[in-house]
């Protein structure tokens, strides 16, 4: 079975699920965790999802932003050790494609879907700008 967990700060996850519902007609294979909308500890729900996945499932956890605390909570559960993939920086494109692709979800196919979805995130009328890398040598340098 294809199983998808969306986890986010605030209602992005349930909002994305509702978008999928409208576009795909249903989202029953999608679970949403809206973190920090109340004071509850949401880590148990992440663990529960990972534990409930079987080797026959094609399971992916999507988190909202690289380095955010929701991302970190998922990363620390080491989902890959349970055969569950973790994709961060989720957008509607990547979740929809993972949900709807007729291909089996493998590391390779998910990488391809991520690359395609990432290419959808762009300023319209793109200019060729080089990003500057500004990583430091030593802390005090």
């Amino acid at each position: 079975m294809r199983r998808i967990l969306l986890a986010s700060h605030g209602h992005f996850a349930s909002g994305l699920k509702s978008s999928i519902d409208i576009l795909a007609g249903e989202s029953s294979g999608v679970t949403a965790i809206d973190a920090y909308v109340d004071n509850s500890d949401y880590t148990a729900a992440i663990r529960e999802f990972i534990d409930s996945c079987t080797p026959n499932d094609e399971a992916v956890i999507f988190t909202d932003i690289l380095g955010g605390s929701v991302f970190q909570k998922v990363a620390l559960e080491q989902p890959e050790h349970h055969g569950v993939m973790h994709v961060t920086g989720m957008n509607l494109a990547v979740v929809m494609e993972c949900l709807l692709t007729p291909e089996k979800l493998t590391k390779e196919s998910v990488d391809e879907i991520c690359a395609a979805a990432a290419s959808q995130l762009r300023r319209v009328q793109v200019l060729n700008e080089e990003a500057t890398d500004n990583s430091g040598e030593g802390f005090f340098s």
Partner: protein
Amino acid sequence: MIEQLRVDDRLIHGQVALMWSKALNTRGIIVANDGAAKDKMVASTLKMACPSSQHLLIKSVNDAEEVINDSRSKAMPIFVLTNCVKDALALVESCSGMIKEVNIANVGRFVNSEKTRVMPNVELTPEEVEAARELCKRGIPVFHQVTPNDAKTGVETALEDIR
């Protein structure tokens, strides 16, 4: 100088990386946390969370004291993070004159023992309440401010109603 010491049980995360390092205009972040200093998994997760504009050090609380008291820290705007009030108090006590202010921002969500809600996002165990009271006696501002756009709440006043 340590522009701010923030108590945040999520250490480096969205609010810190996207908002605070910019608002405080720091050049470096020191995570002072014994667990993170020991755990490669936690450390590499924090590295991924750190914005590229900030140099990063992940140190035990003891080792962080040394870095903060390094003479080169005086000239560099630095942001320090601990995940509990007790560790913040230890740093303020041992790094006299180096820390401008303490922000008790997010504490207690992931603590499952007995805790009291002091402010929104701040739930303290009895030991943490005591550490917060001590912290308020050290002559530097101690407040609660989750994002730079929120108003500051004084911690000393918030503690008056506790127990």
